[in-house]
């Protein structure tokens, strides 16, 4: 007690006020001392050429196998068997030669001879066999493998043979997004669902993952010391993860990161004006091969009713959506779903905003509002209240859709969940309506031309798998049964006609991807699948001289 008294007496003395001010200054001065304005990476390593990528794709866990976004970034360190070229063709990456039998039941992959893991071992067919089997058996997103792949065997050190259960013309295409896992590391990991590794992750790409520091929000890639391919002209790559896209935009503008990359997304349109004013940036603008669409739970009434879907398609104000959601960087889509940037595009009927027509169709199809409460009733007499499932990034678009539907007498409630939860709820059909963007990858999986999203025989992977129509199955099988260009063109047209007449999903807009990048690097190569995040790009770019 005495001590407390004396301390409090001393602390209260007036003369000590000066000391407090002094201490305050001593603390503040080192803090306020202006630090390096440009990112710390450059300041610390003046002689190192580091590419810093800014993203707002949140990596949740240091698991390159199962975390949705970590697996995207791991493409650099753990390249898949195949890759997409800048002009959209799928060619070999780890695999240098691919042969298939004429009935497409047997596939041979010959892998590159001079690939090495970052811990020294060479990449062999064992690793490929292991990876394919591991994914087939453990990954929740590769359901198709279980249905398709019968056995995986090795004929020599660099050759893997896949024997299939059914003919599959597009097996090589499917292999473009599954990263190669080192057998000697992953064979001992029994429960990948409970595995994280924030330190070095062994990889065989030109760069490997040195560290995944989620506290700091950075993934560090260092050069693979055993890489025998062409020498990259940069020394390291850092992926900086931002929680807020505005902060990311400012960081880009200030030079804390050099380029923006979000998987299958454009730079936020509302922040383009500011970055365009910054003379040190150039831009890549491309019409995406994917699109934003309204998905419907086709197994449930009233979404199963074609007339209902038709009515919905007239209720949506497409022009306004483009004005508000993409600030003009988009086009009103056609009922055929697929944008002109896709191979074998066919012009189908454009979508039209006509709310009166929507109401007419609803009235005529038995969705009247009999109790005049402003909400129409379904065929079972209950009020039409639909659940709209979205990810937070589509919150505002959801508001617009809600408003459009409300003005034609359909009530919707919105449920907003994060990406992986949305994937799972979609998989389990726990929604009436949902807003989805198709990724360029999603457009080419399965039979291609977005069939991967709808064919109900293909489950998992966050697709809708909601079309049960045998006619549609036949169309998919036709596409799957051939690699002949003419036949494919014919079938692709048929698929688009199907979308046109059946409207299994209502496209909302075709969007333009804009990617800003700093001119201090040159030689940028993008591909439709992964934008700037592809190995060809990282082997090609170099610091701009001067």
């Amino acid at each position: 007690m005495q001590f407390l008294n004396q301390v409090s007496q001393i602390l209260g003395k007036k003369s000590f006020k000066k000391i407090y001010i002094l201490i305050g200054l001593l603390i503040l001065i080192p803090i306020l001392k202006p630090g390096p304005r440009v990112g710390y990476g450059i300041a610390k390593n003046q002689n190192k050429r580091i590419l810093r990528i800014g993203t707002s794709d949140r990596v949740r866990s240091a698991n390159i196998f199962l975390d949705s976004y970590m697996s995207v970034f791991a493409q650099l360190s753990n390249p898949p068997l195949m890759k997409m070229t800048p002009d959209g063709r799928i060619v070999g990456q780890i695999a240098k030669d691919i042969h298939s039998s004429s009935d497409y039941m047997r596939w041979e992959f010959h892998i590159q001879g001079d690939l090495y893991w970052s811990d020294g071992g060479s990449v062999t067919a064992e690793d490929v066999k292991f990876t394919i089997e591991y994914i087939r058996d453990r990954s929740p997103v590769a359901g198709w493998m279980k249905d398709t792949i019968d056995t995986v065997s090795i004929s020599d050190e660099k050759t893997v043979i896949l024997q299939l259960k059914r003919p599959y013309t597009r097996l090589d295409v499917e292999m473009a997004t599954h990263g190669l896992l080192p057998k000697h590391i992953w064979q001992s990991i029994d429960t990948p669902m409970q595995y994280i590794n924030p330190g070095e992750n062994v990889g065989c790409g030109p760069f490997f993952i040195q560290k995944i520091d989620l506290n700091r929000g950075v993934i560090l890639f260092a050069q693979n010391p055993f890489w025998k391919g062409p020498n990259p002209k940069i020394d390291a790559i850092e992926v900086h993860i931002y929680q807020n896209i505005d902060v990311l935009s400012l960081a880009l503008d200030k030079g804390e990161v050099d380029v923006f990359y979000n998987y299958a997304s454009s730079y936020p349109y509302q922040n383009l004006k500011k970055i365009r004013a910054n003379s040190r940036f150039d831009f890549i603008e491309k019409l995406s091969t994917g699109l934003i669409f309204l998905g419907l739970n086709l197994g449930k009434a009233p979404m199963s009713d074609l007339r209902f879907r038709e009515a919905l398609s007239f209720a949506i104000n497409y022009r306004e959506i483009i004005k508000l959601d993409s600030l003009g960087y988009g086009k009103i889509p056609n009922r055929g779903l697929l944008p002109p940037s896709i191979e074998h595009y066919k012009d189908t009927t454009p979508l039209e905003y006509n709310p009166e027509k929507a109401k007419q169709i609803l009235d005529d199809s038995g969705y009247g509002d009999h109790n005049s409460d402003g909400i129409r009733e379904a065929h079972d007499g209950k009020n039409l209240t639909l659940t709209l499932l979205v990810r937070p990034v589509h919150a505002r678009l959801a508001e617009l859709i809600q408003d459009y539907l409300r003005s034609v007498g359909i009530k919707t409630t919105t449920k907003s969940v994060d990406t992986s939860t949305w994937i799972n709820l979609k998989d389990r059909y726990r929604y009436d309506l949902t807003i989805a963007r198709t990724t360029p990858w999603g457009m080419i999986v399965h039979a291609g031309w977005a069939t991967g999203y709808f064919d109900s025989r293909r489950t998992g992977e966050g697709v809708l798998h909601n079309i049960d129509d045998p006619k549609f199955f036949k169309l998919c099988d036709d596409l799957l049964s051939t690699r002949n260009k003419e036949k494919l063109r014919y079938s692709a047209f048929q698929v688009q006609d199907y979308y046109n007449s059946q409207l299994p999903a209502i496209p909302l807009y075709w969007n333009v991807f804009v990617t800003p990048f700093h001119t201090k690097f040159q030689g940028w190569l993008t591909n439709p699948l992964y934008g700037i995040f592809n190995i060809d790009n990282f082997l090609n770019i170099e610091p701009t001289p001067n």
Partner: protein
Amino acid sequence: MRKPALPRQNGSAQKKSLTSLLAVVLFLVFFILALCANIIAPHDPWERFDPYLPPSAEHWLGTNDLGHDILSELIYGSRVSLLVGLGAAVLATAIGLSVGLFSGYYKGVTDEILMGITDVFLMIPRIPLIILLAAFLKPSFWIIALVIGFLWWTSTARVVRSKSLQVSEMNFVLSSKCLGFSDMHIIFTDIFPNIIQIVIPKFMLTVAAAMITEASLSFLGLGDPSMKSWGMMINFAFTKGGLVNALWWWFIPPGLCITFFVYSVVLLGYSHEEKEQAALGIG
């Protein structure tokens, strides 16, 4: 009221009344905004114009990312703050009063049990619980007001209890008991009127706390999407380019509104308390 008369103090009563005047005026402004929003607001806050417009004659505070007129949103936002604030505070005070009254009057076992319950509620982490519930349930401002009301009654209960303990020892209550009045009658006719003075500032502070909580939840995106809320406005400004594009007219006005509204309520509470303290000869 059978409260014994106490001597009143003059003096700095004038200074205090100026602050209370300010508080009342400020509160009335927001109250009127909330009540007459549809008359005062220049546009329907849900009507969509061109997005991201800077302030102009047509839109004094510009438009947001969906083209809503920000000034109109601002005016309508007072409704949610007022409704949730008042609703939650009424519920919280009702619960707190009941608990405190019964606890202080009956004493003994009732007191122990009720105070035990109060302790439990005091220690429940409130915002995490609301977030946990929000994950399971759909957001609507009724639920928010209800949950806030159910969690914020504890400090009122404590204060009412101690005063109630005090008052129930007073002679006039004892004489009522002797005269044979029922307990409930005594509680509501004798004790309750003497508690009110204590409760009013607590009520105001609860309104303030509820308003801040609602705004904070809306900022996280847990608010009711069918109503315009100041917190939600700031949420969209934060996530849709408000900061990096320096659109200060979007996120600063709603924040200021929350602050001013809460300020007026808190001042009302404090000035009442100060009046009471002056009356009782303290301060």
